[in-house]
């Protein structure tokens, strides 16, 4: 067995990919299958005042229609548990699902969608996090008092700390402040979101899914369908790229509801444009840093405020803010850290996980902050990173103890690859030995 370690092996399923035999979800065409097209909100924020699906329902070739009242179980899902499958009344983002038409083919279903009679009272949306936090901002959730996510009732800021930043700043000869922002990004896997659902021979609802994480979603689907999990056969494993975007349900809920209601195999797939415009994105992060540094370059305090744009629904964003807090001080030993994270709702498609979810959104600004510190203090940026890099036994803000630290070794390798000659005293450092500059960490205050 061990002879294979370090070898490049052809993929066990690679012949399927190379011959086109691998079946992705959209490759399933079942006898009697019907197709879904959806009505999405044309406005960013509003209230549905009138919805009449009868013209769509009476279109030749249309099997039936779906809206909020057709959700058999709970019309809420998502990691935040706050997103409706079909919105019954309030629209929170452009592209939000309102209704669906099921037809013998997509053209027919689309003909039905174009006939839906709908009236929406448009309202003023808010897209910018800081605008959304103002006291008079339009409310994304009509039943709430602010656009801040509540981690627990009344609790809108998630704080993590180790040590005491004020004590840290008191020891620092330099205080450096900076604001950093990362933008939105789409996952854009080549395979758009798609789902095929049907009732199997045991009357179970079978769903071929593009999901990256069936067990994040199975429970949510069971609640939506009002079925025990044992009545759902959730079939996944072949994914045409996900990159975090397929952690959220985009198609299985609609296909499943249609299969249950009409008793026929159903295919629902998003077009590329729907996928790009309305599916979940990597959300915007803004981080404010205040860092205390000693004359010798030792980092002694890091106070971070971070804001995460969640879009219209919670999704993974509250968790993302917490996770970002853990990584926003980078792989560096700072005895006094305080992070304050807030998640803000705006009238945009929901944010979601994406590759290195929220980690680089914290590490990128920390590295930029180190650059700024190097510039403002005149300390060499390599020196600054080497002396502060995690050594085994250090503690991060979440108070885990670092084992197997490797930042110094990685930096040495990077310098080597970049053709940069590091000074001897840095080359002599490693992740097992504390640097000479390092003072004793302040006691952890619980």
């Amino acid at each position, binding site marked *: 067995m061990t002879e294979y370690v370090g070898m490049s092996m052809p993929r066990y399923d690679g012949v399927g990919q190379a011959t086109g035999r691998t079946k992705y979800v959209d490759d399933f065409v079942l006898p009697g299958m019907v197709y879904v097209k959806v009505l999405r909100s044309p406005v960013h924020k509003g209230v549905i005042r009138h919805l009449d699906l009868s013209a769509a329902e009476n279109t030749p070739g249309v099997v039936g229609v779906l809206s909020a009242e057709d959700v058999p179980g709970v019309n809420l899902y998502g990691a935040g548990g706050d997103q409706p499958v079909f919105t019954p009344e309030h629209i929170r983002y452009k592209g939000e699902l309102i209704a669906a038409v099921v037809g013998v083919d997509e053209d027919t279903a689309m*003909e039905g969608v174009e006939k839906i009679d709908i009236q929406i009272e448009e309202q003023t949306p808010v897209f910018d996090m800081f605008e959304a936090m103002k006291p008079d901002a339009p409310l994304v959730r009509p039943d709430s008092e602010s656009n801040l996510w509540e981690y627990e009732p009344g609790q809108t800021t998630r704080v993590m700390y180790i040590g005491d930043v004020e004590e840290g700043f008191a020891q620092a000869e330099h205080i450096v402040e900076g604001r950093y922002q990362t933008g939105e990004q789409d996952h854009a896997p080549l395979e758009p979101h798609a789902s095929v659902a049907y009732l199997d021979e045991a009357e179970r609802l079978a769903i071929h899914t593009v999901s990256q994480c069936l067990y994040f979603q199975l429970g949510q689907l069971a609640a939506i369908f009002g079925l025990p999990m044992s009545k759902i056969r959730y079939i996944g494993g072949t994914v045409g790229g996900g990159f975090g975007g397929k952690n959220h349900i985009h198609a299985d809920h609609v296909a499943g509801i249609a299969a249950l209601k009409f008793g026929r195999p159903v295919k629902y797939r998003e*077009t590329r*444009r729907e996928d790009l415009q309305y599916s979940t994105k990597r959300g915007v992060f803004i981080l404010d840093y205040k860092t205390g540094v000693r004359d010798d370059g030792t980092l002694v305090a890091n106070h971070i405020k971070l804001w995460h744009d969640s879009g219209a629904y919670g999704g993974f964003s509250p968790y993302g803010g917490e996770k970002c807090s853990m990584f926003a001080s980078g792989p560096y030993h700072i005895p006094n850290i305080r992070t304050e994270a807030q998640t803000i709702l705006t009238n945009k498609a929901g944010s979601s996980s994406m590759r290195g979810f929220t980690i680089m959104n914290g590490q990128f600004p920390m590295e930029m902050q180190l650059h700024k510190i190097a510039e403002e203090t005149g300390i060499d940026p390599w020196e600054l990173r080497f002396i502060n890099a995690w050594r085994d036994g250090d503690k991060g803000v979440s108070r885990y103890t670092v084992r197997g630290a490797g930042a110094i070794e990685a930096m040495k390798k990077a310098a080597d690859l970049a053709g940069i000659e590091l000074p001897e005293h840095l080359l002599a450092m490693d992740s097992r030995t504390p640097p000479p500059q390092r003072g004793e960490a302040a006691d952890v205050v619980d």
Partner: protein
Amino acid sequence: MKDVRYFAPTEMAEATQLLARYGDGAAVLAGGTDLVPQLNYYERHPEAIVFIGNLNLGYVKEDDSKLVIGAGTTLAELLASDLVVAHFGILADAISELGTVAIRTTATIGGNIANASPAADTVPPLLVMDADLVLVGPDGERTVALQDFFTGPGETILDTGELISEIHVPLLNGGTSFKKVGMRKAQSCAIAAVAVRIEMDGDTCTDARVALGSMAPTPLRCTTAEDLLKGETLDADLVARCAEAAVGQTKPIDDQRASAWYRIKAGKALIAKALSEAAGLGM
């Protein structure tokens, strides 16, 4: 969508009669690279699709000191044409950056023109060569200057029933250059594109053409820049003034690809580069 009719005429007269009969309900299908996405995304609901790929409009000929290009010639065929490469290098340059191999296999030059996108990459090179279009309709044929063809984004002077049948490109003198900037090199719609042709007598410019793409509602001839050049000694200062004058004639838009501000900046730089290259200035 179900009641759409499909026609694949083999005679021009039949094609123009079909187009006249269906009027606005007709969709002309050549290579399909612009039309089919509109069909796939339900943006167009034609009553009839008239496929003009069987009209034998794919050819490049040299005729009486001009190139005669059939409107149905694919971009791949143009790129492979010795006549185009020898006499009209900037068209080949523009096409080599247009779309990608699989798009160029089917996309036609007539389609690129008739679609009337402000970003049509073949148009600025054709404009600087003073190209004419032959339009054929149910009532006969007319020849128009390409620069009079466009009236707005997606809008042209084509009458109901009319098709572009040929493009006539005079084999004019002068150095030429084509420059484009997009989001990436391959398969990207131009953020700004520039073609120039400049005739020199020693250091003095005797005649010039400057054309821009993606900088206004239609592809644009920059006559103010051309007038500045004629009869003048070409140097870095004049090039800079021409670039300034040319973008002064434009009305670029902000969209997802670039801001108007960026288009102006990029357009100016491209004009200066193209003029220097076409005049052999090596600046």
